[in-house]
């Protein structure tokens, strides 16, 4: 088991619901995981399973129609544990943590930067608010951040507006902005989906470097199993608002136990396995989030479903780190 001092954020039984047209969408229905210091936690799962809602819940940046209904998000700061879920969403306390101690980068760097301010201005904004750093000092810091993120000619680039940056450079600038106050945790929501493949690799390399050099805990949301294999220390597989399987990267990728994890792994080409892979798309489609199955959310699509699956399976630990949410996990554990 991981000692508590290695954990940056722990999420316990988190339930975040959306209320649209008087109907309730249980976007997160009891999610638990830890983001460890200096480690990368990858969250994977199909579109709509609640990855972004998880990130927004931690940042307390949920849309107005949604609410944390139950559960805890504890940020283990040096000055003591802080229950983020209990803080006022836009209160002073949360704002002091957001951006300074927990930072976030988004999917589309083309739209995530404000087009009417220079990149430097937007980096300095964080420095001013969180570190009271202004003027020359802030300018120098912005330049050194851009330099660290691998932007050429940072002295000149710092004054450029975002439209003069390429997509990859903008994401680097976003990361520079996020890293401005040396956060303990960096949350990245599909940070490279909008970029082309070579740039993707560079951005991930950069994030990995930050993790090693700054000890930043990273929560990386991605669709790409190749990235998971490459970067992750821990993996959580989400399906319809639950983490159906979680563990270290070896456990989840080498001994996938949950039928959904297996199906997910079978549906994508795995790096290094060569070309003639047997790729199978997952049968069926995700259920209507407003009209979810009562029991196991995956039951409609699962090849192993039995009558018992009409009730919600419990989270069970296979090893101290490897847990799974499936009634029939015992039969499904790969031997070896």
């Amino acid at each position, binding site marked *: 088991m991981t000692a508590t001092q290695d954990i940056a954020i722990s999420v316990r039984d988190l339930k975040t619901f959306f209320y649209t047209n008087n109907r309730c969408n249980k976007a997160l229905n009891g999610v638990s995981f830890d983001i460890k210091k200096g480690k990368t936690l990858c969250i994977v799962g199909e579109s709509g399973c609640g990855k972004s809602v998880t990130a927004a819940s931690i940042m307390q*940046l949920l849309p107005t129609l949604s609410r944390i209904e139950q559960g805890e998000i504890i940020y283990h700061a040096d000055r003591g544990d802080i229950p983020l879920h209990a803080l006022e969403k836009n209160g002073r306390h949360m704002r002091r943590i957001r*951006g*300074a101690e927990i930072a976030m980068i988004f999917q589309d760097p083309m739209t995530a930067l404000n*087009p009417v301010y220079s990149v430097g201005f937007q980096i300095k904004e964080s420095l001013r608010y969180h570190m009271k750093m202004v003027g020359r000092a802030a300018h120098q810091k912005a330049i050194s951040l851009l330099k660290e993120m691998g932007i050429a000619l940072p002295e000149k680039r710092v004054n450029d507006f975002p439209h003069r940056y390429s997509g990859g450079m903008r994401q680097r600038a976003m990361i520079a902005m996020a890293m401005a106050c040396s956060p303990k945790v960096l949350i990245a929501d599909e940070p490279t989906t909008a970029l082309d493949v070579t740039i993707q690799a560079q951005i991930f390399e950069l994030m990995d470097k930050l993790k090693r050099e700054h000890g930043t805990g990273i929560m990386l949301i991605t669709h790409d199993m190749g990235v998971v294999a490459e970067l992750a220390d821990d993996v959580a597989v989400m399906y319809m608002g639950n983490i159906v399987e979680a563990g270290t990267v070896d456990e989840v990728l080498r001994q996938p136990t949950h039928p959904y994890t297996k199906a997910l792994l079978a549906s994508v080409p795995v790096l290094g396995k060569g070309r003639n892979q047997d790729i199978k798309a997952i049968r069926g489609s995700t259920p209507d989030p407003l009209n979810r199955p009562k029991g196991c959310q995956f039951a409609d699509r699962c090849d192993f479903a039995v009558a018992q699956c009409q009730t919600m399976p419990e989270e069970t630990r296979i090893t101290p780190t490897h847990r799974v949410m499936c009634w029939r996990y015992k039969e499904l554990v790969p031997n070896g």
Partner: protein
Amino acid sequence: MLTYIIRRVLILIPMAFVICFLVYLGLELTPGDAVSHMINPDAAGSMNPAQLEALRQSLGLGQPFHVRFWSWFTNLVQGNFGYSMSGGVPISNIIATRLPATLELAAVALVFSTVIGSLLGVVSALKRGSKTDSALTVIGMLGVSIPEFFFGLVAISIFALNLGWFPVGGRSMPGYVTLWDRLPHMVMPAMVLSIMLTAGVMRYARSSMLDALSRDFIKTARSKGLPEWRVNLLHGFRVALTPVVVLIGFRLPVLIGGSVIIEQVFQWPGIGNEFISAVRSQDYPVVMTIALLSVMAVLVASLIVDILTAVIDPRVRLGE
């Protein structure tokens, strides 16, 4: 930036020339010429055609169109607009006495609509879906759809005739010298003139602001832990501002057109009023000159809008 402005100004010159040409053509096509207006019709009957022809020649009217146009144009550039047909007063004199009154009104209305319109629009967007928002939306709809003269008449009947707060019309009274003295005269016409533009700006500012607030960079700004006012104003409103400025520029002709009506309703001694009386007395040179100036005003306004947009939106600065 400077090259951008210079380029824009240079584009304006040929446009202005073409407009002058069209206006002169319009003058040319109106029935009669200077001579037929100079001479009283009864006298004209008793003059022989040779005399009339001689008069035409002496005035240069016998010369070909392009020569006359060129001489008119060069005069125009030097600020000599020709003469009014009623009374033979130089048109430039008329303009010089009437224009300040119009500009004064338009400037007050413009500033008022811009500031109040944007403010209400932003409030409406930030309080989206609230009672304030609905009320402002309804008011905005009324503002853009009810004609200005109606507001003018209602305002006169309530605030001038019944309550007696403001004078019924006119720009000033004998002995009123400072702007402060004249202020009560200005309030009603300026407010009424700005209603339509204010409502337009408000509606536009609201949707522009909502659009800006829904963009990704707002989420980024919030994720940096910035306070709400900074997220909304520095990131949201700043971006929402560009289209609003463009809209105001495009709506400036409304202000110019509106001033014709408003000046009439409030007996404001401006260009618009002069325009109406010139139309009534068929004083073509005056009508055409005022039309020409209005078009020029619109052109200059669009130039200013372009420059302003470039100043506030870095993506437009093509001249870099």
